[in-house]
């Protein structure tokens, strides 16, 4: 972005939005919408509170567990679907259904199945993240040039080496799937905890809301957004390095 011929750093637009937030907040139009400065101050309180650290720990661990499962299951499923037509025929429809389904509606069912605790949140994270990883991995495997596999076969590559080539050749797409999955997983962990509402950040949100601590409420939202975007950005950077040579593959 340029203004009067000068280059403006990306952060500048963010600053503009924060100033607008501050002004609107100061006008005191909505009780739900405190100025950014008080959100910032509340953030200090939020992150130092013991409840926050507990919530953070629970949230992080359910997120990590759900994502871990989603990665293992998603990449495995995607590779199998990409390699074997019958498996693809059986699963493709369901993957697409779950990808576009409003998964939040399923959380109450998970609560019945897995109880009002961390397992439900883990399953929610998993369900939010896994399908896009499956689909992108599948696309990556299907895009591998057949001659690359013939080449490895003709030079005597064993099963393990061939699997390695499949994985490396599909890596750009797999990473794209992981990046999207990580962001969806954050949605999953927040929605899961909000609906369960007695653990993790969900419990904190409920607490702040019930006590009209709107600055704290917003501070928590800002923290979560920052986390999700940072994760996506990190994977995005990794992706660029891989794509550097992968997008020119013949």
């Amino acid at each position: 972005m340029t203004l009067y011929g000068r280059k403006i750093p990306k952060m500048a637009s963010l600053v503009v939005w924060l100033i607008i937030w501050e002004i609107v907040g100061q006008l005191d139009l909505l009780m739900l919408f405190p100025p950014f400065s008080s959100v910032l101050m509340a953030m200090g309180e939020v992150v130092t509170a013991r409840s926050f650290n507990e919530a953070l720990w629970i949230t992080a661990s359910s997120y990590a567990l759900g994502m871990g499962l989603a990665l293992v299951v998603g990449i495995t499923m995607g590779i199998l679907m990409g390699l074997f037509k019958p498996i693809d025929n059986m699963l493709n429809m369901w993957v697409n259904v779950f990808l576009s389904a409003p998964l939040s509606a399923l959380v109450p069912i998970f609560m019945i199945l897995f109880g009002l605790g961390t397992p439900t949140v883990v399953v929610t994270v998993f369900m939010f993240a896994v399908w896009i990883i499956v689909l992108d991995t599948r696309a990556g495997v299907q895009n591998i040039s057949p001659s690359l596999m013939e080449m490895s076969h003709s030079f005597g590559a064993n099963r393990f080496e061939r699997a390695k080539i499949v994985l490396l050749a599909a890596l750009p797409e797999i990473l794209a799937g992981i990046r999207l999955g990580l962001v969806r997983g954050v949605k999953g962990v927040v929605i899961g905890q909000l609906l369960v509402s007695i653990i993790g950040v969900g419990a904190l949100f409920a607490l702040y809301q019930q006590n009209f601590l709107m600055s704290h409420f917003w501070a928590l939202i800002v923290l979560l957004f920052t986390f999700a975007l940072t994760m996506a950005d990190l994977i995005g950077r990794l992706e660029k390095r891989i794509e550097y040579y992968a997008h020119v593959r013949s």
Partner: protein
Amino acid sequence: MKIATAEFIQNGAQPVTGANKIIEVKNVSKVYGTEVVALKDINLDFEAGQLTSLLGPSGCGKTTLLKIIAGLLPATQGDILVNGKKVTAPGPERAFVFQDFALLPWATVLDNAAFGLKMQGKPKAERDDIANHYVKEVGLDGFQKSYPHQLSGGMRQRVGLARALSVNADVLLMDEPFSAVDEQTRRKFQEDLIRLREVEKKTFIFVTHSIEEAVYVSDRIILLSPRPGRVSEIIDPDIPSDIGPDELRRNEVYLETVENIWHGIKKYVD
């Protein structure tokens, strides 16, 4: 043994049969699905140390035959014998050069050239040594650490060639290796191939759809006709070996051979 449905031999030179055959194609047919007959009753011998071209219009089954010989595709009927042994899978005595190069995009030139050796379990130092030798031999010295995407099409195919040479196979199977490179590079390649053949003393089976290319580089040309793929003629061009590439393109025997093949092939091209 029936070698071809119609045999046409240039300048009365008899094709050498029997003595040195390294590959035998016996009654090979290939049907894709239920109706696409890509090859029908192919019987051929390939002589050791010769460069034999499979020539024919697009879709006549050249790639199919080459892949069956490579063990990458099963024949619907018939057998391939390499040194008298039946082919069921790829083997270390055959190396393939791919039309689209088939290089690993994440590996350097040297690692790509060493791929076959790595699959054979050769230790790193040894395989790098051998691969390095062939990378130099194909004219890519200085590019060992480059990645495929940094190279031109012609250079990529040289990597493919170095990879095939590194495993020291007896037979090199080349599927239109020069079709994806530009005309100038292609000529250089053809000259290099002829030189390489003299240095390496290997058997080459070379697929092409260019008559000129086939006549220039081959000891023997097998002309395939399409739908279904059959052997229509076998030609042994008898071009003096001591003339240079520029002279060759004006050589009478060369021009006459090209002309004869074109007459044989014309009816299949519409």
